[in-house]
Structures are given as C-alpha cells and as structure tokens.
C-alpha cells in the first residue's frame, strides 16, 4: 500500500461538468496517490469516462479544480499534461508500423535516432512484443494492439497513465490474462494507473482503490476488500458482486453493537459502523451468497435458519441455490463450492442454512 504522507499525484476538488442542461459530474472529490492503481467503476453513463477525459484534458470542467502533481491544470491542453492515455479503441495509427506507433510521442523528445530505437525496443520488450517493431499496425490482433497502445503511452514515462476500458474489446481468456499482466506492469513501472471500467470483477482484481460512481457522483471510494465487505449503501452492494437483502428492524442500540431482528434469520448483533436511525426503525441487512452456508447431513453451526430450495443453478465450480427462509419475504441466494461427495439439493428440498452476523452489513 501507499505511503500516506506523500503528496497525491492527482487531486480532484469539487469537479462539476455540465453538458448544456445535463449534469455529468456532480462534485467529485478524490485524491489519488503516487504509484496507485486506481479504478473508476460504474455503469455506463455514470460519468467515469468524462472524469478520465477531464483529467487527460479532452474535456473542460465546468467548475472545481484538477491538480496534477500539485499544479492546477485548468486550460492546459492534453499535449502539455503529464498524462498519457490508452484509448478504448486503442487508437493505433494504421498507417504506421508498430515501432513508429510506439515511438510516436518521442518526436519532440530531442532524442537521437539510435536513442529512440533503443527506447522503442525496451518499451516493446516490456509489453512482450519484442521483434514486432517492423510489423504493420493493422496486421495485429486485439491483444497485440492493446500492448502497442500501452507501450506507446508508457514510453513517455507519464506521471499518470489513463486507461479507458482497455480490456472491454478482448475476449474472456485474453482479458483475464491482460488483467494480471497490467497489474504486473503497473508494479514494475511504478506509474499511477487510473482505470475506467464497468466490470466490477476487473476493478476488484486490479485496483489498490476503487471509486464507485453513480450518476456523476462517487458513491464509495475504498480498497477492493472494504468495498466488497462493507458497501456504503445497497446500490454499491448490488453493483459489486451479488448481495442478498433482507428487511430488518432495529430493536436495541448499545455503544458497541446494534441489535436487529431479521425475519427468517432471527436476532443479530452488528457492529454499529453504519448505524441507521434509532430503535424500532426499519432497515435492511445485506449478506453475500458465500457467507451463507447450506448444512448437509450431520453438520451443525451456531446460528441456523431453515428454508426451502426454490431453484439451483450449476456453474461448474459452484452451485447457487435460491432458498426461501421460513418467515422471510424474499428468497436468498446461497453459493456452495462443489466438492467431491457433496450432494446437490433439489428444488423443494428442506435446507438448513448457517449464517454469521459478522458478515452482515446494515443499511438504513
């Protein structure tokens, strides 16, 4: 993790953006640290790409400030900013060779021809494309184009690398491979990466911290684990992975715990980090499918609830069950790892569910 004493490489202060009447960014505040892998995650239209393009200089902001390395960059054009971008379409120049593409930004660097050649060679090697320099850019595959785009941006040693949905055009296998590779590359070069993605899994895998955006606002900014375990609200919980929601009523509120009554599960004492209103108020609790466990013959647990299996879906490594808890208004999803000898419950079977209050999140 990062040294918190360091100056942030990017500071966003009250950034607003209007397109005519449309309010695309509604007061974005965030600080992004030196060498951090930072993701902007959200559904399409949430403003994440607008924010990235504002950092790159392709969009003017309507109000607020963007500080790059401590300097306000208002009015500074993209070619004068210490940022480089990997575009969603990769934007590889089709009329140039791979080496000419990668060396494109060095034109004004004052390097000699042989220095440039060395730099291009190193950049290509870094992304695993050594020997590809003389190839025509339009003859490359999707994954190779992506690597050329990375090399072309990283060769300029930017303070911040901006990536606009760089993996969305790749097929699943290639995408998974590039996720780990991008992470490795980022650690290797130590440059701050800002990734825009709508894929929550991708953001969780790659990022140091994630800003989840809805409708032009940051709903939550946290490291992946905190985001997954303690979503700030129902919407974040729904967007990141799967989450079951059950109605709950606050029945007691002490200094260290809040006690809630959840139909179908019973009473639970929760940490009051996101305590809603007072005693008697209606709330809801969130539970991840993997923090509910089906009990098979002979197993036991501290807290057990009963229900009926309504549906099951087989995923190969996992089976997901929809279970209606006795006395609960809606079904909950339960994920179980498929293990040798473990039987699969059928629709209509009675099921015992073990649960743990520590995995519950309370929403107001």
């Amino acid at each position, binding site marked *: 993790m990062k040294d918190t004493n360091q100056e942030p490489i990017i500071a966003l202060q009250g950034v607003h953006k209007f397109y005519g009447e449309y309010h695309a960014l509604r007061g974005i505040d965030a600080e992004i640290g030196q060498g951090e892998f930072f993701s902007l995650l959200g559904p399409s239209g949430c403003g994440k790409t607008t924010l990235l393009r504002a950092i790159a200089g392709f969009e003017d902001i309507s109000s607020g400030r963007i500080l790059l390395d401590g300097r306000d960059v208002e009015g500074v054009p993209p*070619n004068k900013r210490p940022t480089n*971008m990997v575009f969603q379409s990769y934007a590889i120049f089709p*009329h140039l060779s791979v080496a000419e593409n990668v060396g494109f930004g060095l034109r*004004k660097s004052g390097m000699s021809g042989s220095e440039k050649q060395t730099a291009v060679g190193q950049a290509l090697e870094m992304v695993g494309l050594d020997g590809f320099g003389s190839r*025509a850019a339009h003859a490359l595959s999707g994954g190779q184009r992506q690597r050329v785009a990375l090399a072309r941006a990283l060769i300029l040693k930017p303070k911040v690398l901006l990536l606009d949905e760089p993996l969305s055009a790749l097929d699943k296998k290639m995408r998974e491979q590039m996720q780990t590779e991008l992470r490795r590359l980022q650690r290797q070069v130590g440059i701050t990466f800002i990734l825009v993605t709508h894929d929550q899994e991708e953001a969780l895998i790659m990022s140091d911290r994630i800003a989840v955006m809805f409708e032009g606002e940051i709903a939550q900014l946290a490291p992946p684990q905190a985001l997954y375990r303690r979503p700030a609200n129902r919407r974040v919980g729904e967007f990141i992975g799967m989450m079951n929601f059950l109605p709950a009523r606050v029945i007691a509120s002490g200094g260290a715990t809040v006690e809630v009554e959840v139909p179908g599960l019973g009473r639970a004492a929760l940490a009051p980090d996101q305590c809603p209103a007072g005693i008697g108020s209606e709330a809801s609790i969130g539970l991840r499918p993997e923090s509910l466990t089906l009990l098979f013959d002979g197993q036991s647990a501290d807290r057990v609830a009963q229900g009926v299996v309504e549906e099951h879906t087989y995923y190969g490594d996992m089976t997901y069950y929809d279970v209606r808890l006795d006395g609960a208004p809606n079904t909950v999803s339960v994920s179980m790892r498929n293990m040798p000898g473990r039987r699969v419950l059928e629709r209509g079977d009675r099921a015992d569910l073990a649960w743990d209050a520590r995995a519950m999140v309370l929403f107001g």
Partner: protein
Amino acid sequence: MRGLRIYAVAYLVFLYAPIVLLPLFAFNDGTIIAFPLQGFTFDWFIELTRTEALHDATVNSIFIAVTTAILATCFGLFAARAGNRHVFPAKGGILGFIMLPLVLPEIIVAVSLLVAMLQIGLTPSIWTVIAGHVLICTPFAIAILNGSFANMDQSLEEAAVDLGETPLSTFRLVTLPLVMPGIIASLLICFTISLDEFIIAFFLSGNEPTLPVYLWGQMRFPGRLPVIMALGTILVVLSIMLLITAEYFRRRGLRRAGLRDTGGFL
C-alpha cells in the same frame, strides 16, 4: 431471370455503344460520319496536332481543371473536417447550403454567376470559370471526404494530441495521411468534372474557351467532325486511365488503413 439479363445487356449497349463509335470514326479515312467505313488513317490525329486554337483550349481546360481540383478539394477538406469533428451553430443549415449546388440547375448557376460578375466589373476569363467550377465541384469533394473522415476513428487524433502533438502537427502526421486516399479521389473526380463541364464554361469563359466550348464551336463545321472524334477518343482513353488510377489509390489506401473494401466511390 433471363429477361433481367437481356435488360442488363441492352442497358450496357445503350450506354457504351456510342462511345465505341468514337475511335471507330476517329481512324476512319473519310469526312462523313457514316457506315461503311472507308479505311484506316491517322490523319485526324495528325490534324489535331496542327490546330493552334485547340491547343490553347486544351491548355485552358487543363489549367482550369487542375486549379479547380486543388481549390475544391481544399475547401472540401475543411468543410468535411468541420462537419465531422465539430459542433457549431446552424451546422446543418450551413452544410446543407454548401451541398446545394449539387442539385441546382447548372444553367441557373451559370447565368447568375455571369450577371453577378458583370455587376462587380469582372471580365469573363479563365478565373471566372475556375470560380464557377469550384462552386459545383466542392460538394463532390465534401461528399467524398466526408466518407474518409467518417471512416476514421476520432480517437486517433486525440491519441496524437495526447502523445504531445499540437492540433496542427496532428493534422499533418495523422489526419492527412489517413484521409489521403479520399483527397486523391476528390482531386481526380473534381478534375474530371471540371474538364468536361460545358454550361458554366460556355457562359463564363469569354474569349478563353475551354475544350468543351471549343468542341461545341467546331460542331458548326461538318468537315471537322472526324477531328472531334479523334479528340474524343483521346479524352475517353485519358478518362479511363484516370479512373483506374483513382481506384488504385483508393484500394491501396484501404489496405494501408486495414479497412474492409465496401465498394468504390465510382
């Protein structure tokens, strides 16, 4: 199906048979344009080389066509880029009015240009013809270059700026090479349109006739018809070569840009 095939063949015969007659009579040893053919001769081509007025008209036409092609393509380039990359007030209306000469009757354009030019005291000359031709060629240039810009990923220009280039050097290093096939196509099309344009040239050329205007004048002398046939033959051959060149550049451009061929501009 059979009926359709006959229709297609008849259509092609109607379209091209008159053009095939051109070289036939250009090499025919006789002043009368009628069958049977009299024998083979190069006389009419030799006579072409001896006609002073024809040479002047040819030089006028080529100068006008080249200048028109360059000017119209430049204007087309600006308009197509503006239309594809920028949002400005009354954009639709402005672009619509620029494209209007495409459908305006040429005779109206010619007459109004003549009136306007005489009003502001310009004498009909090569330059007034160029002005008229630029007016009617620019919409074609825009139409061709619009396609080039629409095919081009906008983030390519952004990428160049992001990599440190100014908007101007981006235009030179990225935009221009990528729309070059469109530029060449536009130059060739505008050249061809200007070269065989008659009405505007007829009204605006004054005493500096272009080739079509000169040919029209020669039609009064039946004895000159075989010479005109010979000239026509040369023009047809040149046009075909020009179109083949244009198509070659278009395909090469597509290959270099890695795009799929979706049919030519012809």
